[in-house]
């Protein structure tokens, strides 16, 4: 059954969109990420223009990550202070991300920028995650403790920074400067690339800030909800490219899929989850890399500048 997408300007089968939302939602619920890194490329593949895809996916991520946030919140697995500190950086990041997005869009290099950043980001994160999960799977098999130890004396240069703050839920005492910076960088990338950045934030919080893994996913989901909600409004105001019909259908599938994914994840050991997620991220990254270096199907691209004279 085709439904006309008013801003993307063409009709798509409604069941295809629901299935897409459901599938990506399942992945996002399973791994505690927004799923934007899958949804944005898939929409572009369907024929949605990259700019509309990025702006609309922000809405979809808001829905699925809020659904996740609420279930983690009930389990008291959200560090609000940490999320607030990340968000403070995120506000500035979102604002500058929107600015970069609009500039690239008008210069005509948004597509290239998107492929390029997806390639670098996804292969790097996917590769690291894959390596780490293989190592910890081997450790689990040999009954050794996990790689990320929280033993006393695990201090490095990060702990020498000023403006220290005690994050009580996460039981860590660190400077707010790196937290602020991480929030900012994640938000810039999220806005430009149409991703929530959850798949980036989770490893950063675990390995860099040493946030306990019980708190990480919920806190990341909380931050993602806030930045993507803000990005939705800002995309709507600056570029008018948020497609309400597309976003609504994706959301309906997405929130349901996320719940099923979250249930499925509870039956799986965390390192195997990270292995699967790393594999998935890496695969999407290679796909982008292939696109950049292989001769393109369409050497010429057309963009409308305005209504003709």
């Amino acid at each position, binding site marked *: 059954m085709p439904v006309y997408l*008013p801003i993307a300007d063409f009709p798509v089968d409604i069941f295809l969109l629901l299935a897409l939302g459901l599938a990506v939602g399942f992945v996002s619920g399973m791994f505690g990420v927004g799923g934007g890194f899958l949804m944005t490329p898939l929409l572009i593949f369907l024929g949605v223009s990259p700019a509309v895809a990025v702006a609309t996916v922000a809405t979809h991520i808001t829905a699925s990550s809020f659904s996740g946030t609420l279930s983690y919140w009930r389990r008291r697995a959200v560090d609000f202070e940490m999320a607030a500190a990340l968000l403070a950086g995120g506000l500035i990041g979102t604002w500058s991300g929107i600015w970069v997005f609009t500039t690239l869009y008008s210069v005509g290099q948004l597509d290239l920028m998107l492929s390029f950043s997806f390639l670098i980001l996804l292969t790097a994160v996917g590769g690291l995650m894959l390596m780490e999960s293989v190592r910890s799977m081997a450790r689990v098999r040999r009954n050794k403790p996990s790689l990320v130890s929280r033993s006393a004396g695990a201090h490095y240069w990060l702990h020498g920074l000023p403006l220290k703050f005690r994050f009580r839920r996460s039981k860590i005492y660190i400077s707010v400067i790196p937290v602020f910076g991480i929030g900012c960088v994640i938000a810039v990338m999220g806005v430009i690339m149409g991703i929530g950045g959850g798949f980036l934030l989770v490893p950063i919080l675990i390995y860099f800030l040493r946030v306990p893994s019980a708190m990480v996913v919920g806190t990341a989901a909380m931050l993602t909800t806030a930045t993507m909600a803000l990005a939705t409004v800002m995309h709507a105001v600056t570029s008018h490219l948020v497609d309400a019909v597309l976003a609504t259908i994706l959301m309906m599938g997405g929130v349901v899929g996320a*719940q099923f994914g979250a249930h499925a994840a509870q039956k799986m050991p965390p390192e195997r989850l990270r292995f699967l997620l790393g594999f998935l991220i890496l695969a999407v990254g290679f796909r982008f890399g292939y696109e950049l270096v292989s001769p393109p199907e369409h050497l010429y691209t*057309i963009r409308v500048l305005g209504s003709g004279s």
Partner: protein
Amino acid sequence: MSASVRIAAALLTTLAVLCPSARAERLIATIAPSKISISANYSGRDIVVFGAIAGTEKPQRNYDVVVTVVGPRQDLIVRRKERVWGIWVNRSSSILIGVPSYLAVSANRPFGNIASSEILRYQRLGLKNRVFLDQAVDPDDPFQINLINARIQEGLFVEEPRGVTFFSPTTFRAEIPLPKSAQTGNYKVEVQILADGRPIDETFSSALDVEKTGLPEFVVTSSINHSLLYGLAMMGLALSAGWFASVAFRRN
């Protein structure tokens, strides 16, 4: 075929019979529908053109009909990807002014058989003679050629040498497919006739409005006129969808 179209066809045939005294041929035509609405379930639509040539004299001449549908014109930028350090990047570009967002040209037989290429160019008949406002497509300009090929692939430029069918020597019918990704705006439908390969100074031209209605229209106008409210509404919708799912699927 809808009832209104059938009535119009019958009317045209009658008119064609009733006007025998005129010296030169006259063209009578009608289009259906006269307005196209893009609503929530729009997925392409056919434009039907009916026409008759009246006032023909014996011996009857051999008629050809060309139907042209031109969508709202746009200014475009066409960019070419080039390989830089192994990566494909948008490099050179060309700005093309006043290119129709949709262009369909139908005739009853291949254009080469209808008239000489000079006449076709002068009368602006055929796809490549009609794309630009003031000149034919330059066959040596790769940007123009690739624009046209891309548009043909997307179904936005159509050249149909057998799109017009005569069901009597003087009455004809054409069906032009408006694609699912059609732009909104003012379209123009034109019918030109040629007798024995020479143009007749008698053309038909009609406006055709393509508009978004219903939900699509509401979404587009509110996204532009009330963008802040629109963004806040989308945010609210997303948050409530997330909340609803987490409540509905709560295990205990």
